[in-house]
């Protein structure tokens, strides 16, 4: 009973009674989630363009960081070293295509996956033979110190606005996604997917609403106003708010699906315009707003934010924007998208698959370099850097193997979920749950949605 209490009730009470600390934990989670996203991004790029599940992405991060540090140790200035390492990653992509991929066209995915495991071993040995295997510090000139912004007075409305903006932007993204999905479903004539509220949703909504209303039935909960809240009261209160949130979510979802169906009915026969670009913009906007809100809130409440992590988040955000522009606005980017859609069709319009593979591995290498700079700068350059690949895997299945926004959103969810679980639930069940929590979260999620959050719908034909 005590154990159940410490798992089911106590964490919620801690969260409710210490919202500031909770905010700090969430921000920390977002920042580490950004770093997971960066690694997951490399996976997604390669998987989309070549169908290779590239396990070597983690060791590519290690290799990039090792090369960078190695060059800097030999007296190369930071910026030049970054450029040189970028060139090394390009060369690496070229060699990989020449030596491995070229010979493995048309092999089964699992064989290619195994080849990348071989590549993992090879690169690990190669990098450490070349640059040595001792732990190295990577100094990129950003102090890894708490950035104390306490004392700066910021007008209250601004904080509220920033927060509301971030929340609305995220909601808008979610809604947009649902609208699009519903519209596509309606266009494809998938009746079941275009029903605004299924029986399951209805039950959930009614239950949620019931939970919320129940607290009024049992009298107003004065638990939070008069002195110390009793644990049970706090738990019930949080439960009822959660109920309201769930009911609202179902209602919003239904609205989105209804909207999507209307759209589809209105312009029946025309294809949905590509929303990718808007997607990235909205994501970037939301991210920026969220970051701004976080900083401002931190400034108000005296939370310590790490300047290095802030830098990492900014770097990741700009990387995502650059990648989005590259994919949407350049010729090569268009070719990449074409290959991702359909290899054979891309070949038939004269796109060179091999060239594309080199490019996509090179891009993944550069993403690995960025991740290497951030992770290496944070925790030193050492072998364990290659293990973050294992952290990126649940991010991948959560977001979907083929979705760039999925990698980012998945990374954030995993980052936050992991931190919150470790801080609030960890002590009750023995700690160090970071290792597997992300996998369990992803697993539970997959049972509901097997293709991940943003993955393409799995259509099976016999």
């Amino acid at each position, binding site marked *: 009973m005590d154990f159940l209490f410490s798992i089911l009730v106590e964490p919620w009470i801690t969260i409710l009674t210490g919202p500031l600390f909770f905010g700090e934990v969430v921000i920390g989670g977002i920042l580490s989630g950004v770093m997971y996203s960066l690694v997951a991004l490399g996976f997604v790029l390669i998987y989309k363009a070549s169908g290779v599940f590239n396990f070597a992405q983690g060791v590519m991060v290690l290799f990039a960081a090792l090369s960078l540090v190695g060059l800097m140790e030999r007296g190369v200035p930071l910026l030049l070293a970054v450029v040189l390492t970028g060139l090394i990653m390009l060369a690496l992509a070229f060699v990989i295509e020449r030596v491995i991929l070229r010979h493995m066209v048309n092999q089964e995915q699992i064989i290619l996956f195994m080849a990348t495991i071989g590549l993992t*071993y090879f690169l690990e040995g190669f990098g450490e033979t070349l640059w040595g295997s001792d732990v190295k510090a990577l100094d990129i000139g950003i102090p890894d110190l708490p950035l104390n912004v306490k004392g700066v007075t910021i007008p209250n409305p601004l904080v509220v606005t920033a927060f509301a903006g971030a929340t609305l932007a995220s909601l808008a993204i979610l809604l947009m996604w649902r609208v699009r999905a519903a519209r596509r479903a309606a266009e494809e004539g998938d009746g079941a997917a275009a029903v605004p509220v299924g029986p399951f949703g209805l039950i959930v909504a009614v239950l949620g609403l019931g939970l919320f209303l129940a607290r009024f039935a049992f009298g107003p909960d004065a638990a939070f106003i008069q002195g110390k809240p009793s644990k049970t009261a706090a738990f019930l209160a949080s439960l009822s708010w959660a109920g309201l949130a769930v009911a609202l979510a179902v209602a919003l979802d239904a609205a989105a699906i209804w909207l999507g169906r209307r759209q589809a009915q209105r312009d029946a026969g025309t294809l949905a315009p590509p929303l990718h670009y808007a997607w990235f913009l909205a994501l970037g906007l939301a991210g920026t707003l969220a970051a701004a809100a976080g900083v401002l809130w931190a400034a108000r409440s005296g939370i310590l934010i790490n300047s290095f992590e802030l830098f990492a988040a900014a770097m990741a955000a700009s990387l995502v924007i650059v990648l989005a522009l590259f994919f949407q606005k350049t010729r090569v980017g268009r070719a990449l998208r074409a290959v991702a859609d359909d290899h054979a069709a891309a070949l038939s319009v004269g796109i060179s698959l091999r060239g594309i593979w080199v490019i996509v591995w090179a891009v993944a290498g550069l993403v690995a370099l960025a991740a290497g700079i951030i992770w290496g700068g944070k925790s030193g350059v050492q072998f364990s850097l290659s293990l973050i690949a294992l952290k990126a895997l649940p991010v991948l299945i959560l977001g979907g193997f083929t979705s760039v926004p999925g990698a980012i959103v998945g990374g954030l969810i995993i980052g936050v979920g992991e931190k919150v679980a470790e801080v609030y639930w960890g002590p009750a069940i023995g700690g160090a749950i970071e290792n597997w929590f992300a996998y369990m979260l992803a697993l539970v999620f997959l049972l509901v949605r097997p293709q991940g959050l943003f993955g393409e719908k799995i259509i099976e034909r016999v």
Partner: protein
Amino acid sequence: MLYREAGQFKSTYAADQAIFPIAQDRWLVAALLVAAYLVPPLFLGSYWFNAILIPFLIFSMAALGLNILVGYCGQISLGTGGFMAVGAYASYKLTTVFFPDLGMIFIFLLSGLVAAAVGVLFGLPSLRIKGFYLAVATLAAQFFLTWLFNKVPWFFNYNSNGTIESPPRTLFGSIMEPGGALEALVFLNPLVTSPRASPEAKYLFALTLVVVFALIAKNLVRGRIGRSWMAIRDMDIAAELIGIRPMRTKLLAFAVSSFYCGVAGAMLLNLYLNSVETQAFAINVSFDVLFMVIIGGLASILGSFLGAGFIVLMPIFLTNFLPAVGLPVDTATQRHIELMLFGGLMIFFLIVEPHGFARLWQIGKEKLRLWPYPH
């Protein structure tokens, strides 16, 4: 010339369905078995047993199990290390707490059953998801199980260092020891676990287990069950349409596979390492076993052995090979060069023969049939 099947006529169904329909194969396998039972105990030293033969047998067992799941049923699993850990920790708890009198052979089977139950539990997601999504989902088993065995002191009997040690136990247990019901058979009951047991006894025990379970696996996969696994692997919807229940079939594959992995884990603890931490079942074990299955040959019993041999022997070979060539390098660099060679060889063999050593052997047999004539 030697490998010629002309003149071998099959006149019964039983002969046609034999595991080795060709006489030469039968002789070769019989000779190999005799050699495996006689040569090492008579001629080889304990280094051979402890560093090469026993690990080879253990990983053959694990590879057999994983091959059933990945090769025959088509469900990619990266949780092998976790299931092996279940087997090892189950055998530890069973020998020390629950059945201290029971012989190791029963303990191993029970450990396998425990692992099978856990395997079914973690196989449940396979009903919803497949491919790499499933592979990553099985990593949950890997990380959760090793964390569990590391964190919950009940699993290592609350000892201070968190390692589990194999206690000295005999093959059949107290029933054949002095005072037991079958006291007269005590000569059949050697000590097989703990460092005190002779490596020969451990080796023969492991060998027998592997031979028996390989035979069982071979018969499983060529029977009704194996065919339903393969049907699920090739296309699960089509298999469902012809009346194969995907849930039962997939979960059975997970159960059988985890059983083999669990026995392998129990063997790893009791016959090889004698004391382990969860570190011995880390994620790279899962990858190694998966690689054994793939380099050996998916859906091939022989391939499991070839792959296990390759992965177990290659590092030993490289460790001895590099100094022999006379490269004057320190140990750290040597380890890195070994890694590079290992990775490079993995890629090389995948490029040369993506269907594994089993396919190479098949091609070799085709060639041998004609040799020395060109047609």
